[in-house]
């Protein structure tokens, strides 16, 4: 039976149920239990936003607090993954990749290829991403294009609680290294989530709204903003198809191409910075593959090429909003 759960609860449930099902699944990260070695309670935090709250009570020493030492414990998760475990490591904020990136992009991502197909590294690295939390430049980035750029990594970005549970279970069962993004602004958003275990396959985009006039391709928190824009545009007689990519690597370009073949118009919406972004990647692929189907130039709606600002007045401008998305659709439809 489905319950109305927040994405926070859905992620917690996915971890809990997979750990109960598979004894090789362990979780590690800073404060994911919280309170280890401290005089007060264990499970004091359950992660900085409480996503893993209660798991250490159920799963004991398989929920491992770590020192503040991303380079060591992300690397250890990867080493353990090549040694028979299925670790889920929490890199608290994706912004912290700067201190442990070697272990991700030079080690985990490359083992399979460098070792001639003989290594398996079934590690999941969960990380919070995205702006809108008033967390400023070093706790608010997307950085999705950096991971998507690297062969050997899989990159997953759910936009809602239902997808979060199914995609996280799929990520844990996948035998390749997976970067699993959780947008901190989506943790409290709710959806109907089945009680039981289920998976959502990678490279299957979700057409969240159908329409014949323009295609909007996006992921993460801008899915809802794109839907808001599509709702406003419908009142003007413009029907948008909105595609939630769900996984950035592998990416479901077939669904995008099929949609643009029909609409002839494409707007790519990406909360990441614009250069070499997912938006740029999708735009280039569509232009290369089905240029003849396009009735207008492809448009991108992204964050500006700046760090994430702190001031709420500026941060609200930074994130692509429904108004900007709708304006871009109007431009492409007018052409």
């Amino acid at each position, binding site marked *: 039976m489905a319950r109305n759960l927040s994405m926070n609860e859905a992620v917690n449930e996915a971890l809990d149920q997979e750990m109960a099902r598979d004894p090789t699944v*362990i979780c590690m990260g800073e404060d994911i239990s919280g309170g280890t070695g401290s005089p007060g309670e264990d499970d004091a935090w359950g992660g900085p936003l409480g996503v893993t709250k209660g798991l250490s009570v159920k799963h004991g020493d398989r929920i*491992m607090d*770590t*020192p503040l*030492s991303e*380079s*060591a*414990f*992300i*690397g*250890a*998760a*990867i*080493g*353990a*993954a*090549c*040694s*028979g*475990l299925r*670790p889920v490591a929490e890199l608290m904020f994706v912004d912290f990749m700067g*201190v*442990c990136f*070697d*272990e991700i992009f*030079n*080690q985990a991502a*490359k*083992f*399979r*290829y*460098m*070792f*001639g*197909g*003989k*290594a*398996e590294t079934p590690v999941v690295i969960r990380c919070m991403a995205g702006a809108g939390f008033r967390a400023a430049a070093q706790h608010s980035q997307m950085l999705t294009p950096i991971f998507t750029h690297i*062969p*050997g990594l*899989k990159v997953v970005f759910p936009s809602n609680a239902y997808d979060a549970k199914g995609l996280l279970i799929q990520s844990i069962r*996948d*035998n*390749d290294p997976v970067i699993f993004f959780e947008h901190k602004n989506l943790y409290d958003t709710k959806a109907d989530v089945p009680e039981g275990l289920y998976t959502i*396959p*990678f*490279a299957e985009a979700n057409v969240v709204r159908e329409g014949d006039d323009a295609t909007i391709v996006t992921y993460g928190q801008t899915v809802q903003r794109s839907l808001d824009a599509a709702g406003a545009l419908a009142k003007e007689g413009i029907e948008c198809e909105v595609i939630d990519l769900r996984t950035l690597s*592998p990416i479901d370009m077939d669904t995008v191409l099929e949609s643009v073949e029909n609409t002839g118009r494409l707007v790519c919406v990406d909360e990441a910075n614009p250069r070499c972004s997912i938006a740029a990647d999708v735009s280039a692929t569509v232009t290369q593959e089905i240029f003849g189907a396009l009735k207008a130039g492809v448009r991108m709606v992204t964050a500006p090429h700046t760090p994430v600002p702190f001031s709420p007045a500026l941060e609200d401008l930074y994130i692509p909003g429904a108004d900007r998305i709708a304006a871009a659709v109007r431009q492409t439809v007018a052409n």
Partner: protein
Amino acid sequence: MTDQPFSIDRGTLLDAYRTMKTIREFEERLHVDVARGDIPGFVHLYAGEEAAATAIMLHLGDNDRIASTHRGHGHCIAKGVDVKEMMGEIRGKASGACKGKGGSMHIADLSKGMMGANGILGAGAPLACGAGLAAKRRGDGGVAISFVGDGASNQGMFLESLNLAAVWNLPVVFVVENNGYAESTSVEWAVACDSYVDRASGFGMPGVTVDGTDFFAVHEAAGEVIARAREGGGPSLLECKMYRFYGHFEGDAQTYRAQGEVENLRENHDCIKIFRAAVTGAGVISAAELDTIDAQALALVNEAVEHATAAPMPGPEDLETDVYISYA
């Protein structure tokens, strides 16, 4: 067993000598073949350091894991990776241990517990922590060894790994192979403490310094720290002071060395000569037996070169395979 002064039986000593000699012949041959232009890319030779890898690996089984370095050929051979597959790999051949996709700096054989040579200095240490964690959870007494050079011992990820291994009480031994040079830079200058033992104590673990050219000393010291790890006593740091006979990489002009330094090393600090003198001097193994092994090691390496030379290169169909296990 005949009465002899060593704590290691004669058969094991013969095996150890064979391993050391195979590593030496492998590296000497590569030195020649690189100069001849037969080998693509970077090659870092382990010649001169054989006693450490050999003595340490005698304490390990396939269930135990090692994370190696850019200078990994010796670790590979001592851990049991097939010499033919290694030679093929270094030549970029389809017959290589990694189908020619890794090369000298990325030889791995997980079935032998060899988690890979590594082109990123210090990166093996966190991986060894992970292998140690897996062994600890299995509860089978498995250990993991992290090899690191004196240079990479300054990397943050190495120092973080010492702390993590101590905090989690992991069955990991950190082996610092101190050959005196981080590429061209002296360890005396680049490491800001007098002794690695001090570094170990800073992380709450035992630290031992041993003469890495003395096979027996390494074997004894490694035996103690590995046994400690197996028994749940936690991590240790073992520094092996040693010498490399060649440059940081093949092609290194080595102008940072003192005049006559390498000649002196080969004459007076060759771990294989020292081993040979010890076992023949004690009357445990005859020179003739060792000479036979010398010839067999050379033949094995020659055969590996022939095999690798004859092997095909990977084809265009191999370029895009092995990136993922599943592509959706």
